[in-house]
């Protein structure tokens, strides 16, 4: 759990200034959702919903030692999960998996992106925060409300799961 008056004030500043919050975190939420959904357009739509929810609920958040960013990722993750479930009900699997443009992407890369989407949400989040956003593990741990060692283990499991999933698909070289 994050400790410190400065951290508390940072939380309060973000809570009080929606536009600053939006500018600071909208791009990373879009990237995260794009990875979860496999589509940048869908990510933009869902990110708008995430921040609409943020506008309603962030002012009333009670500080529990975690940054507002952690709350944003939790909401984004839940919304992404709901969207994936909705797609499974309404969209044929082949169409849903074809969100990436095959003409621009090598087949093995498509398989890799699909594999990433099938990982558990916490695996996807640790990969995103550490590698896409480039956060140090200490910050990843704050956002995910875990310790650094646990986050490093999640990263390892994510990598091993990817390797296993690709092996099942018969992909060797990405």
């Amino acid at each position, binding site marked *: *759990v994050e*400790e*410190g*008056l400065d951290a*508390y*004030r940072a939380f*309060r500043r973000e*809570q*009080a*200034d*929606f*536009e600053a919050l*939006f*500018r600071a975190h*909208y*791009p990373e939420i*879009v*990237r*995260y959702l*794009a*990875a979860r959904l*496999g589509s*940048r357009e869908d990510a*933009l739509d869902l*990110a*708008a919903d995430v*921040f*609409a929810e943020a*506008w*309603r609920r962030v*002012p*009333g*958040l*009670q*500080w*529990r*030692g975690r940054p507002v960013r952690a709350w944003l990722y939790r909401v984004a993750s839940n919304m992404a999960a709901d969207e994936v479930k909705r797609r499974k009900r309404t969209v044929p699997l082949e169409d849903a998996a074809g969100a*990436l443009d095959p003409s621009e*992407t090598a087949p093995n*890369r498509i398989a*890799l*992106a699909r594999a*990433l989407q099938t990982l558990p949400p916490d695996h996807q989040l640790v*990969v*995103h925060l*550490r*590698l*896409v956003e480039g956060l140090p*593990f200490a910050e990843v741990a704050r956002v995910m409300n875990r310790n650094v*060692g646990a986050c*490093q*283990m999640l*990263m*390892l499991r994510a*990598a*091993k799961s*990817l*390797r296993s999933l*690709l092996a099942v698909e018969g992909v060797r070289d*990405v």
Partner: protein
Amino acid sequence: MSERALAAELELALTGAPAGDEARALAALLVAAIEPSSFEVASTEVEAALARATPARPHSRSRRRLRIGALAAAAAAALAALFFPHTAGQGVQARAAVAVEATYFVNADVTPARPGLFPATEVTGYVDGRHGRAHVDIFSRTGKPVAETVLRANGGVERWLARTNTIVVAPSCEALPGGCGETFDPLGLYVRSVENSRAKVHRVGDEYELRLPAGRVEQVVHVSAKTYLPRRIAWLQDGKPVATIRFTMLQRSRPRSEAEWSLAPARAWSK
């Protein structure tokens, strides 16, 4: 190689440092996997999305006028009061006193016993029970800064009030013009309580309940039977509940620098 060692080596490989074959292979896989989502969102795109979000926002909430200067400081003082016992009586009361003789990072909700009695607040900051110092922020529950208060080891008080954007400095609580007795009475109240009266102690589940009477006001403090740290306090006046202070965070902290025991509203709140 253990999983933990491999996880550490994977982190090395991801940062480009020398690592074993398996760690490097896994790192390469991860780097390839994130490639599709490693795109920039242009600032023009962000601003456009923000502009689209604007009309959908509900109207600004009505701004409640906060009349909580003294009350907020009282909340801070109540928090401070808890941590400044001058005597360590015996038994549970003594253990409770000893438990807080350190620096703590505190977050507490202060709630009136009846709606409308006073605005609910949240008090957050450092409290040094050993030296009798405190540095806390007080926010309304709607997230608006209300006050910042520093209580020095020598008894000096500094207080910044958000409503008027003014700072009051005084050598002691008593020297503060108007409202001082009211704002810091909980401190004196608690000190007098632990010095001059014996707490009535009851075991309630995994807690001890300490009743500290002082005239018409009584503090009912619930402390953990394991750590002897407080979980919540109820203030009763003439036997009727007035307020509840609930600790949502009470973490032992490393010693803070001198600067962290100073008032810093300009640094903290100016944009």
